[in-house]
């Protein structure tokens, strides 16, 4: 028996950054909001034993339980898609705060160029710069339009940074808090990149440089540089996360509730409107319907797309005809880089997830691509995140992978190795997309999402170009031996790469080529909003959370507007 609950104004699926932002803004506006979270409640008090590489970083304590749900994957349509049985290439979140609990905190604004990538590319390089197989499109919103929402997210999060990046979009306000401390390792990078004619600056960080009270009255503590951010929660409340900011803000209104252990399996629809969601209480197995005036999908890229697909909302993308929008423009990132082996020992074990310096000279269209066989680029950074001993066993090439030589070399180089890395943009391709798997199901009997993805020529060319640049930076930094990253081959879902998956539920100016409008409102179902990095029509050269946070504030504004006036917001 499915039990139908009392109707609320807004229901969100998943309670991480996006569910938290939508929850806080709508609850502040007086709307009754319920967030349904498949995982458990957690808070700073749960992170007091977090300095534990094995439990958190290796065995994925805070991540999604894949025994319940995963995705299937194939490199191309000729291959049989098989389940991602173990976590690898990207780390999916679960539980209150979602991936916002175990993120590093790099908080970027995508470049003005990113939002108008098609227009600007054609204007500067002509229509044939990329083949027609690449699905380049503008986002339906400009950087300037999105700027106030970036500002709002950064103020909520208290982002620490310095306004010294000459390529960044114009800011109305400076960063809320000053940059983090500049360490000797960062100074090496700063000197080398300056020598090469680049413009280094401190990476915008959600590990705060000082204690900060945000406009909602939430306090975020100052970072202690303990070296446990990535894959960990912060025991100091010093890494901005949903559970110490937007979620308590939402709860404070009295209009907000989180329902834990609830796995949403369907968006319900009647006569062109969403009527609510159906979910399963994972502890009892009971089914519930939560009716709502507005339904907001605020889970990760994968699950947002899957829920629309299993609910039959929107037209599936067909790679043969190019028709349909749901599932198209899935993009990942490429990671060019170089590792340097030094003579001197450095305090590599100290750090913070966003402690770093970056150059943007090689990102976006910040350099001329006329003579290059690709577009876009990467932000190139050095980060001092606190390297941990299980995962960090750097050895020069030709060292055996085990035995006496391996032991000596990996121990010797542990504190003598640095890496410079780029986050490379990924341009969508017609053969890269999300769909539903015909064979494999999750623990609730719902089909798994299927990922069809491979790196493309554009990715390989960009990767090669930037790997050479990374090597040059590392040489300039004074490494005894510099080892460039391997050339890009087929995408492999096994090794961890980046949790910056985008696309599948993209935004745009027209229902012909996008799933949602620039308020993240579904084109076909106007009381359904789909929010997340799935909205990105392509992937940029940065971490996504800053841009996702801005889009969530934009969506919250849209939902509040919609609740008053109804109809399409554009």
């Amino acid at each position, binding site marked *: 028996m499915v039990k139908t609950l009392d109707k609320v104004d807004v229901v969100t699926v998943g309670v991480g950054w996006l569910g938290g932002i939508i929850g806080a803004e709508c609850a502040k506006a007086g709307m009754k909001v319920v967030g349904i979270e498949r995982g458990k409640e957690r808070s700073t008090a749960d992170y007091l034993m977090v300095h534990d590489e094995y439990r958190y970083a290796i065995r994925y304590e805070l991540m999604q339980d894949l025994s319940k749900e995963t995705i299937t994957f194939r490199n191309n349509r000729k291959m049989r898609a098989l389940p991602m049985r173990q976590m690898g290439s990207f780390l999916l979140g679960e539980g209150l705060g979602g991936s916002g609990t175990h993120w590093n905190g790099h908080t970027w604004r995508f470049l003005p160029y990113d939002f108008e990538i098609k227009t600007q590319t054609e204007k500067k390089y002509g229509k044939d710069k990329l083949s027609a197989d690449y699905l380049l499109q503008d986002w339906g919103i400009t950087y300037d339009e999105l700027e106030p929402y970036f500002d709002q997210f950064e103020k909520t999060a208290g982002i620490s940074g310095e306004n010294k990046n000459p390529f960044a979009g114009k800011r109305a306000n400076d960063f809320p808090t000053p940059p983090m401390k500049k360490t000797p390792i960062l100074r090496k990078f700063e000197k080398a990149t300056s020598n090469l004619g680049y413009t280094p600056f401190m990476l915008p960080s959600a590990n705060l440089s000082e204690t900060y009270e945000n406009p909602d009255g939430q306090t975020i503590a100052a970072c202690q540089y303990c070296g446990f951010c990535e894959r960990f929660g912060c025991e100091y409340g010093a890494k901005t996360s949903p559970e110490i900011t937007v979620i308590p803000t939402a709860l404070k209104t009295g209009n907000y509730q989180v329902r834990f252990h609830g796995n949403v399996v369907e968006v319900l629809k009647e006569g062109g409107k969403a009527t609510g969601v159906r979910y399963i209480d994972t502890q009892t197995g009971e089914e519930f319907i939560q009716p709502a005036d507005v339904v907001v999908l605020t889970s990760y890229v994968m699950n947002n797309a899957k829920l629309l697909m299993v609910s039959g909302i929107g037209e599936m993308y067909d790679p043969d005809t190019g028709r349909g929008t749901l599932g198209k423009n899935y993009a990942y990132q490429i990671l060019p880089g170089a590792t340097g082996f030094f003579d001197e020992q450095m305090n590599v074990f*100290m750090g913070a997830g966003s402690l770093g310096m970056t150059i943007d000279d090689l990102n976006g269209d910040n350099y001329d691509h006329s003579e290059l066989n690709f577009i876009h680029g990467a932000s190139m950074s050095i980060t001092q995140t606190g390297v941990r001993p299980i995962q960090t066993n750097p050895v020069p090439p030709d060292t055996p992978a085990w035995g006496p030589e391996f032991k000596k070399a990996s121990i010797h180089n542990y504190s003598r190795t640095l890496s410079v890395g780029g986050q490379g943009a990924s341009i969508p391709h017609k053969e890269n997309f999300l769909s539903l798997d015909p064979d494999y199901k999750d623990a609730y009997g719902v089909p798994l999402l299927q990922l069809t993805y491979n790196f493309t020529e554009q990715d390989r060319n960009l990767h090669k170009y930037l790997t050479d640049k990374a090597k040059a930076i590392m040489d300039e930094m004074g490494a005894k031996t510099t080892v460039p990253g391997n050339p890009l081959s087929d995408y492999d879902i096994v090794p961890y790469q980046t949790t910056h998956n985008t696309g599948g539920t993209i935004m745009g100016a027209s229902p012909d080529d996008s799933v949602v409008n620039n308020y993240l409102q579904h084109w076909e179902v106007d009381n359904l909003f789909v929010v997340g990095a799935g909205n990105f029509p392509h992937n940029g050269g940065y971490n996504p959370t800053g841009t996702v946070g801005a889009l969530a504030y934009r969506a919250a504004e849209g939902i509040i507007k919609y609740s008053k006036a109804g109809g399409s917001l554009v």
Partner: protein
Amino acid sequence: MTKDNNGLSRREFLKTTGIATGALVGGGVLGSLITHNVTKDNVAGTGKNEAGGEHVGDVFRGRMFFTNVNEFNVLSEAVERIFPEDDLGPGAIGLGVPYFIDNQLAGNYGSNAKEYMKGPFFAGESTQGYQSRLTRAEIFKQGLAKMDEEAKKRFDTGFASLEGNQMDEILTAFQKNEVEMKGVASEFYFKLLRQATLEGAYADPIYNGNINMAGWRMKGFPGHQMAYIKEIENEKYMKIEPKSISSMEH
């Protein structure tokens, strides 16, 4: 009370080193003191103890997964070849890696509790990753038996009795995927064995490996430290005595 090889009981050791018992709240501190004087002769994993464990001071180390002594000996000798004792410090056996792996195989790690294990199963491409129906516990059991079998085939004796270079030859055969296994590739088993060895060498000692934090000390990793805010800008490389998670206080 069991004496360690320096002839000091644990209590005597604590007394002579002047450690106030009040400071010994965390098991990690305690553990490090106890195991500090464990020498090669009575160290974990040499398989001398038929009952399946050892008893040092008040700490009881035992096998939670392996019931067969020979299997545990094969594991111990194999991981020691992967991460051997040398002039830098202890190898996998001295670090307690065999017990770490045994304990892990008895839990969620061994039963793949957080992994998608539903069928149907197909081999797939290498880019698609692990596609076996076997759990890690089953893979280890089969892999260790196969290593022993391979040793007998090549050298007429069990793996644990081989010379070092003979063990290496067999490990290399697994690494190069030259050994036939059921339901899993031998190279995958080898990767698992190598990775688990590093995990046992460098995980927090609360998991029964990295005894006395000697793995961390070799590598210069200070383990759990509350903060580096005062040192983060320091130009000088800092040697910091490591601390276990068990001493974490807030």
